[in-house]
């Protein structure tokens, strides 16, 4: 008999009954996973990053399996924000699913436009701002790799969206100084951080002797990057202990989720693991609850960042 654990969590002023979320781009708009479990069973559905216009994305092949990981190069294929708000969000809310909308843009202005449209949509729990996108106004330099551009994106979203909807800024690990980027976006108004987006990688097809992916480079995800995610979360939590982190990167079991939580995550997104197992999020949730109970935690929040506690005298 283990004690029940209060699994609820908050990101900014948004409350969730449990800390397990889908990862943006790894659950489409939610309908497909709903064949496998009721979406209201998880903390929230984080939807695929949506842009202002419909988009085809990148050419195929869009994926390559790598050792304990995979590369993807989807290129933000999607219906555009209007169709998304008209069809996908209402459907999710009907399922009693909590919804975090992920937005992506090519200009600072596009992010603000997206925020404006979200502002008038009701029922959304939070907005995740995916800033790992190339900035067309600055030689395609990814926003998240440029401290100034990331700050300006979040600032624009904050100003447009008003004070209520929590903003989760999603950062890329492909930077020299992640805590500095994190501080910048928090100063600009982010209520929480999502860590980590995929790591830039490439596979060369040894038969064609060219890059395997249609988009040449791709984002590395899955268990292979878990140690990078843990490090990123630990570093950022050390620098900004008060800022809630939505942790992700290679989580496939309750033990993985616990690692990220001990490092400082208040919520966990499960991405790639759902590709191998559509029930992964539910299983991770249940395993996490048991692991927390076995360690004597009565609430999830007691475990958040617990690996940072000072050394006991031995």
């Amino acid at each position: 008999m283990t004690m029940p654990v209060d699994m609820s969590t908050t990101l900014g002023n948004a409350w969730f009954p449990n800390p397990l979320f889908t990862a943006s781009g790894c659950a489409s708009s939610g309908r497909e996973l709903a064949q496998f479990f009721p979406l209201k069973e998880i903390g929230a559905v984080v939807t695929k990053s949506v842009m202002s216009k419909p988009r085809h994305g990148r050419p195929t092949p869009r994926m390559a399996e790598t050792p304990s990981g995979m590369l993807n190069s989807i290129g933000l294929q999607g219906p555009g924000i209007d169709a998304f708000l008209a069809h996908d969000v209402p459907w999710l809310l009907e399922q009693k699913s909590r919804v975090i909308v992920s937005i992506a843009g090519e200009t600072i202005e596009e992010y603000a436009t997206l925020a404006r449209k979200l502002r008038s949509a009701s029922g959304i729990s939070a907005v995740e701002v995916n800033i790992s996108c190339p900035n067309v106004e600055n030689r395609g330099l990814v926003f998240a790799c440029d401290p100034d551009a990331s700050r300006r994106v979040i600032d624009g979203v904050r100003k447009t969206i008003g004070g209520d909807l929590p903003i989760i800024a999603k950062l890329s690990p492909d930077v020299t100084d992640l805590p500095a980027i994190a501080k910048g976006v928090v100063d600009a108004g982010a209520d929480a951080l999502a860590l980590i987006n995929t790591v830039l990688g490439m596979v060369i097809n040894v038969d064609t002797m060219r890059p395997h992916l249609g988009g040449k480079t791709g984002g590395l995800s899955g268990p292979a990057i878990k140690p990078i995610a843990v490090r990123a979360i630990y570093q950022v939590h050390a620098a900004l202990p008060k800022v809630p982190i939505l942790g992700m990167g290679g989580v496939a079991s309750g033990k993985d989720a616990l690692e990220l939580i001990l490092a400082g995550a208040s919520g966990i997104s499960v991405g790639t693991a759902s590709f191998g197992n559509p029930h992964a999020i539910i299983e991770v949730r249940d395993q996490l609850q048991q692991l927390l109970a076995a360690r004597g935690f009565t609430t999830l929040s007691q475990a958040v960042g617990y690996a940072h506690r000072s050394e006991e005298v031995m």
Partner: protein
Amino acid sequence: MATINKNAVRQIVTVLSNKRVGAYHQILLSVGDIVKSCRPGNFVAISVGGAGSRMILRRAFAISRTSDNSQYGGTMELIVAPHGSGSSWLCAQPEGTEIDILAPLGTAFGIPTQPINALLIGGGYGSAPLFGLADVLKSRGCKVDMLLGASVGSKIYAPMEGKRSVNSLKIYTEDGSMGETGRVTESLLDIVKDRNIDVIYSCGPMAMLRAITEIVSVTEVIHQCAVEESMACGIGICMTCVLPIEKEDGTTYMARSCIDGPVMDGAVVRWDLVGKVPDLL
């Protein structure tokens, strides 16, 4: 889409037998009640490599045949080519191994309500789902002809019992080691005309599906093809498996071959754009 995969189940199943047949492995799985919801054209996604494997993604295989009998309960047959590490692992699993499957997935071949003249065309292991389809079509009173092609004879999969369910079977190999020398598309237009074909059902390499579509585009024949794109999830959540599809209004969108397929109408696939990105919407 809303109803696709609604019967999909994840289950640990047992390998009943694993036999080499030419270049392929014929793998029989004991899957219980899953067979009740499997339709010709559906596929199964299989975890490979066992616990602790560095392969994190499932592999997709067409469901070749299913049956439900008193001795073994529901069984599902797969025809697997050892290609890379995952399919080779599967081909190496002996009788008794437990494997983790997710099935049935994806769209199925459309079955006509009227008796029609059907031509089934398979390339390589693409013939696998066609024999089960032939049974269903025959039971609906259809006339079923079949063309199978491959590079070499060992890559023709045409089991004895399968042959019984078709009215005629013609085999082509590129090296002439079995049947006629050449490709299934060799005299396709003639066959279609001579036999008054209403619907072509095909499964095989993308180049074959494209060639069939182009050849029959001058006819009224409907071409239902089961496509094969690299898939990360198999259940519609990753967007890796997309194909360009032409909508009625002439615009093109990227459909997911796992959930909007694998069975698609060949005529709406923009074969010329596969592996490319269509013009902006």
